[in-house]
């Protein structure tokens, strides 16, 4: 238990508050690795777009919504940004063919979809050329340390040290809807350790592991799709 008298000067000092806010923005280190496997040539027209979808058939490996949104958002950015249709818009437009239990699992299932005139017309009208299936997730691999916080009528404070390690592992399979084949895969792995020392005020140093994996994957996907090879 920390004495409230010790807490008071820390809590009211604007300089210290600013210091804490700046420290809160600090991040831990993240290591990322990206790999790609190309099995066919790619390229995208100015009127064509892509859609990033999460696989929902395997609960253990299901990607988080925010990771899919992050990749989708990043693909549109920058000078080599590409057109992206949101997951919700795409599955609604193609309902009921891309629902969790009806979506094609392999490219061998694609002809059944793209060869139906009603679906082919819809795909042409929405302009989606590539479907990017994302699998994988981020999880905590280890954690340690201890922190005690107390609150009293004159203030509050914490003391201790916490650390934890997160690991991200994602794989994107890219399908060419126009030709009904798989054109390749991009995988992104990241890990990093976050820590939070606390002497009265906890100061988090968060390793943004998932964001690191997202940024690396997005950059690689943009190059993969736009590079005509």
């Amino acid at each position, binding site marked *: 238990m920390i004495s409230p008298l010790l807490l008071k000067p820390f809590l009211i000092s604007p300089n210290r508050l600013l210091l804490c806010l700046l420290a809160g923005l600090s991040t831990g280190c993240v290591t990322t690795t990206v790999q790609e496997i190309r099995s066919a040539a790619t390229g995208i027209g100015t009127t064509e777009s892509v859609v990033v979808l999460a696989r*929902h058939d395997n*609960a253990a490996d*299901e990607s*988080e*919504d*925010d990771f899919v949104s992050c990749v989708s958002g990043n693909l549109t950015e920058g000078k080599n940004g590409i057109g992206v249709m949101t997951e919700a818009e795409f599955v*609604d*437009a*193609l*309902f*009921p*063919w891309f*629902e*969790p*239990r*009806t979506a094609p699992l392999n490219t061998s299932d694609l002809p059944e979809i793209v060869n*139906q005139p*009603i*679906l082919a017309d*819809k795909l042409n009208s929405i302009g989606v050329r590539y479907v990017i299936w994302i699998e994988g997730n981020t999880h905590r691999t280890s954690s340690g340390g201890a922190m005690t916080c107390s609150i009293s*009528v004159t203030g509050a404070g914490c003391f201790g040290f916490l650390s934890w390690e997160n690991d991200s592992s994602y794989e994107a399979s890219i399908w060419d809807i126009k030709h009904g084949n798989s054109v390749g895969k991009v995988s992104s792995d990241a890990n990093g350790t976050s820590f939070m020392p606390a002497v009265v005020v906890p100061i988090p140093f968060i390793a943004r592991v998932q964001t690191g994996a997202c940024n690396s994957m997005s950059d690689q996907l943009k190059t993969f799709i736009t590079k005509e090879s």
Partner: protein
Amino acid sequence: MTSELNCRNTESARLKFIHRCGLGALVALTLAGCSGAKVQMEGDIPTPLVNQLPLRIGLYLEPALMQYVFEEKIEEHGDWRIDAGPIQAKLFKQVTNAMFIEAPLVDSLTPTGVTLDGVLAPSIVDFQISIPSQTRSEFYEVWIKYLMRLYDPQGTLIAEWPLTAYGKANRGDFGVLENSDAPGIRNATMTALRDAGAFLALRFTSVPEIRAWLDARATVAPGGET
């Protein structure tokens, strides 16, 4: 703020304040422990992209379906209530309007004053949920078992088949500080409803009795029209 200043004045006030803080914390902890959710299902079902069958099928939605409410008390995890009745009309109207050339709502299994090839009557026979704390997973899950019945215009049963729908929602997709119970179970239910619509639209003609009925109609009246 006023109460905090008062607390500093006297020892008795301080004790009162601590007591109140303790009580507040206890209430907050109790509320946090008693989870549960009360959800009114709302939202839109997209129009299915399927080839229309040359059939005029009336849609009969029984009152029990339209007023369907799922309720369950899960020990240590509160009361769960999902009002899934009103959205059934939206779901089945949207799906059958895309599946058939005509799919009017009818008020009985043998409607009069309208020319139909059959009447479709869905009903819910089972509804189950599971929450992350029960399964030690990250998912809210919903299973809905419908019993679908297709009658001819005279009220004779043509086909009866189960339609099992499943939906899940990841707790991790909600904010750390957000109570994910209501949005989680709502999203899982909506996914299950879409799943029901998807399987009805895609598998209708795969039901053996319906396949046989359609084949018989094609033999009697080429083009499938009565």
